[in-house]
């Protein structure tokens, strides 16, 4: 078991917050990319 001592609360909170923010940013980036890709494909299909 990992030793966290008496500061377990703050440490876990800091890690949870940071990892959640990073995950949100990655998810947002990927979603926006997928959306842009779809939109471009649709426009190119309509044109061609």
């Amino acid at each position: 078991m990992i030793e966290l001592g008496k500061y377990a609360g703050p440490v876990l909170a800091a890690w949870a917050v940071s990892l959640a923010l990073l995950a949100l940013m990655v998810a947002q980036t990927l979603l926006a990319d997928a959306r842009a890709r779809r939109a471009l494909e649709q426009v190119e299909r309509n044109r061609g």
Partner: protein
Amino acid sequence: MSIWEYANPVKFMRTSAAILPWVAGGAAVSLAVGLVWGFLTPLDYKQGSTVKIMFLHVPAAMMAINIWVMMLAASLVWLIRRHHVSALAAKAAAPVGAVMTVIALLTGAIWGQPMWGTWWEWDPRLTAFLILFLFYLGYIALWSAVDNPDSAADLTGVLCLVGSVFAFLSRYAVEFWNQGLHQGATVSVRPGDRISSAYSYPLYLCMLGFFLLFVTLLLIRTRTEIRRRRTAALLAREVQG
């Protein structure tokens, strides 16, 4: 073969697609190893387990500053040589930098609570980061407020230049205003100031991981912006024709 070839969007799309898996893989591996290693480090005799916050706090703070510097460089390239990819890269980097600043501030607050007995202290480093965050917010808001993409790139570029000078100035003004609690730079070249190697290796790995993560996100977001720009251009042509 010069670096300016990557200013061509088509060339950029091809090259970035080729290197993206490698950078993303590198980011995933170094982050996974660095973070797990950092989480398993022994307790510090003074700070207890709170040193583990360092593996997120320090890389995030480092990237928060470096991303602004990268935006400054990209803005200069846009303003001087007018390469669109450069302007779009600056735009793509800003939200990542803002999130890094938030992570640095939040982990710092959570770390400060048990160590200094306060969530927030008007300490020079903390205050300077808060100001940096405001600059990020203004930069992002300006991008989203201007409709014409070229004007937006110009205006945000000028704002980035002026903002850099003032962010730098604020840093020293704030130091003048209040001497702080925060320790100096953790990763220092001066011997004796260094943290012990049990912490430094995972820390370096986390820094590398954060850097590669930023590059990955930057590449993806820039590709998104290029696609959006192309979609808008095609739609505009359709309306005209």
